[in-house]
């Protein structure tokens, strides 16, 4: 199922069911008299024995009279961790890399507003990880280690967005990017021609264990001439003072 046929207002009359494939997740929406029965079935390939019996999730939502169901794109509901492998930024240098971000789909009834949100679906299963030290840190999804240096080079599927990340090394030492967190709750999602692109993430690295400056903003270069917003940031306030880079330490003794 192509993205345009997913991202639309689905009119479903009472007593009927519509099945929509969102990546490897199948959504079956049944319109009942005053509500919606949503069933999501996880058909994601699993190369191991699948013992997750509850792969189908069924919920009923009492919503009232509206027959319309809207599916809107969004960014994942946890931060994303990029695992840099061999990416170095020398002192005083600035680099812009592009990452692929898997999209989440939000299902609303009637119209897109927070109180009408019924469910969120991720088009594929994301791996959980931890950013930071085991006694502090924060939960996140892992993005892997793939990155691109040229915006036009990236080949993305309809279920992914491009995230431009600009890193400036203001420290006196080489920045070997090991783990970089993208706090996507502060990002907007824009449509630039046929691509979905997030706000630009601008990070200034000021040294290990030092909180650097980070900014998330619209960029004409990557987000297009006219601002076509597909999703607003989940959290537009308080960008917080948090570490953006994490450097690995061996936590197991080698005895």
């Amino acid at each position, binding site marked *: 199922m192509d993205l345009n046929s997913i991202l639309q207002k689905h009119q479903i009359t009472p007593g009927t069911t519509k099945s929509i494939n969102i990546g490897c997740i199948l959504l079956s929406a049944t319109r009942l008299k005053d509500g919606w029965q949503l069933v999501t079935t996880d058909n994601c390939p*699993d*190369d*191991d*024995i699948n*013992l*997750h019996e509850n792969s189908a999730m069924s919920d009923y939502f009492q919503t009232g009279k509206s027959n319309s169901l809207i599916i809107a794109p969004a960014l994942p509901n946890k931060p994303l*961790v990029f695992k840099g492998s061999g990416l170095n930024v020398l002192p005083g240098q600035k680099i812009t890399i592009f990452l692929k971000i898997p999209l989440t789909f939000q299902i609303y009834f009637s119209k897109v507003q927070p109180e009408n949100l019924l469910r969120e679906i991720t088009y594929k*299963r994301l*791996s*959980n*990880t*931890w*950013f930071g030290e*085991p*006694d*502090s*840190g*924060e*939960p996140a999804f*892992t993005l892997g280690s793939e990155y691109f240096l040229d915006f036009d080079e990236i080949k993305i599927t309809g279920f992914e967005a491009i995230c431009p990340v600009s890193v400036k090394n203001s420290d006196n030492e080489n920045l070997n990017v090991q*783990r970089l967190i993208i706090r996507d709750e502060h990002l907007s999602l824009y449509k630039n021609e046929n691509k979905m692109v997030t706000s630009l993430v601008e990070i200034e690295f000021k040294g290990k264990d030092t909180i650097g400056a980070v900014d998330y903003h619209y960029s004409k270069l990557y987000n297009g001439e006219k601002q076509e917003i597909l999703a607003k940031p989940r959290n537009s306030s308080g960008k917080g003072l948090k570490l953006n880079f994490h450097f690995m330490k061996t*936590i*197991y003794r080698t005895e």
Partner: protein
Amino acid sequence: MNFNWSEHFSADMIEKILRISIILVVGLIIIYSLAFLVRKLLPVTLSKQRKMIINRFIQYSGIIILFFIIVSELNIDLTAIFGAAGIIGIVIGVASQTSIGNIVSGFFLVSEKSFELGDVIKIGDKSGTVYSIDLLSIKLRTFDNLLLRIPNQTVISSEVINVTRFPIRRLDFDLGVAYKEDLVKVRSIIERVVRNNPLCLDEPEPLIVFKEFGASSINIQLGVWFEKANYLKVKNSVFLEIKAAFDAEGIEIPFPHISVYTGEATKPFPIAGKEK
């Protein structure tokens, strides 16, 4: 036998009892209302533990003040009480050594902040969720929903493990595979199981250690990291998935075998097969 009330209770005394009762009731209402009001006004960000300490402080100070008001209302000479306090102190000290020890331990416990309300802790062989931290004891709600009271003195002198202090934990599994198995393959199966389990964290990386050549198996330790709230789900799912993956790949999980002999030790026990 007729009891003459007027001999024992004069009008003055009844008035005094009434006055003290009113002071007591009104005083208690004021103390508890004040504690309630402060609890409501405290910022939401303040931990349950701190809220409880502030609340208890208001209640205990209020009760002490109320006690002195009632004593003065009864026209009891406080100087005499204080004069006798030294002797009384010794008597009380000897009589309530344990209680005082518990109270002092309680202060250390609160200031040390090894655990807070709502934390899951282990003390000796007991574990549960911290339900309340009181003057003399802490109370745990055990996982089978019992209230367990542990004196503060016992807590302070015991080893306490706070299970839920940190946001993530590692859960260890001890696995055993037969000597004939290819250990590289075993390791890759374990890694795949952990990688595919959505509740296991990618990082910190799972720990896989080939521990020892055991009596009947090669023993492996697997440690998986997970968010603390998912403990049971992780324990059960990883357990089931490893067993299923080993079965699917034909990896033998050995268990102790007993050979039964009869008569001479070298000859096995005769087993007769049933012909069909």
